[in-house]
């Protein structure tokens, strides 16, 4: 399992320097570390979060948005009619609730369709693993800056240590 500290170090080392999002259990440890480092700005909705990230990019930052995949639904319109057409990048770190159908009912449809959904709207994505973490973040940084588009990194349960057992 990846320590939250190590994950945040890797994100910051890759050059990302603006963090917002909406809480999720799987990302709880990461949000905790970001808050301790006083770099996290909480949002109240995922469409607000991705729009704040867009504003941060307009101001020269390289932004990250953390969210549960249910929030991806809230964010879709802003990603499609702002980021993708204005070429505004950000790294979306999305917890993969409902992976392989092992979750509460409300997560199953999004859990099943998320990768296809991202492919349909042409947002490149990877799934985080301990062995590929450094490479995943290098890829994310390189892709957002060269293509000026959002990319997504999916985080499954049990891959990054959370604050809850």
């Amino acid at each position, binding site marked *: 399992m990846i320590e939250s500290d190590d994950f945040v170090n890797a994100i910051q080392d890759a050059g990302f320097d*603006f963090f917002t999002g909406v809480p999720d259990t799987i990302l709880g440890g990461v949000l905790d570390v970001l808050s301790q480092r006083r770099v996290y700005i909480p949002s109240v909705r995922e*469409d*607000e979060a991705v729009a704040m990230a867009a*504003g941060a990019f307009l101001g020269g930052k390289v932004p990250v948005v953390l969210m549960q995949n249910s929030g991806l639904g809230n964010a879709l319109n802003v990603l499609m009619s702002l980021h993708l057409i*204005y*070429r505004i990048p950000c790294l979306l770190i999305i917890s993969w609730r409902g992976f392989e159908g092992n979750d509460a009912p409300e997560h199953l449809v999004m859990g099943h369709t998320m990768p296809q959904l991202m492919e349909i709207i042409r947002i490149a994505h990877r799934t985080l693993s301990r062995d590929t973490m450094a490479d995943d973040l290098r890829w994310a940084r390189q892709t957002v800056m060269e293509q000026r588009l959002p990319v997504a990194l999916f985080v499954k349960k049990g891959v990054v240590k959370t604050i809850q057992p």
Partner: protein
Amino acid sequence: MRPEEGVMQSRAQAMQALFEVLSDQPVIICNGFPSREAHKIRDRAGNFYMIGSMGVAASIGLGLACARPDRRVVVFDGDGNVLMGMGTLATIGALQPRNLTHVVFDNEVYGTTGNQPSYSRVVRLDQVAKAAGYATVERVWEREDIVYEFTDMLNSDGPNFLLIKVNEQIEDVDRVALDPSEMTTRFRVAVDADQPVRSREKG
């Protein structure tokens, strides 16, 4: 009929007054006719014209204000937009960005889609902003008051909320013809955002 109707400006007239006060402050302008009118009245590199993503103009402004505490950031918003993203008033009230001035042109209708009534004629958006914790909230409609309050807000700590009651008149304007990705680049140059990014990439 509203009591202030007789002296109310159109949004374009109010916008004209605001542009006369502005110097180099970046302005995020909400989608629909507000962006089209701003583009016609005073096109400048520091204007970011939204053509979609209704409801998040203030969120973009907030992100920019947080990223760039050295710049005074202005948002031109509408009542329909604020109602759609009302949670952002709470985020702004909680974060207290001192460099953010949020202007709302309130015509009480969805003017871009045919003047369907909005709830701002019964829900006072200035009172919502006040309850959310904006540092300064003003509600104006006459040109002199618009200029006075906006000038004051650009020179004092925010977050500031300027509600301008305007009539329903819409200018005869075309869609913003600029390419969106070029607008992003132009805006980033105007706020000197490309410089820090480049230096980080070298380092």
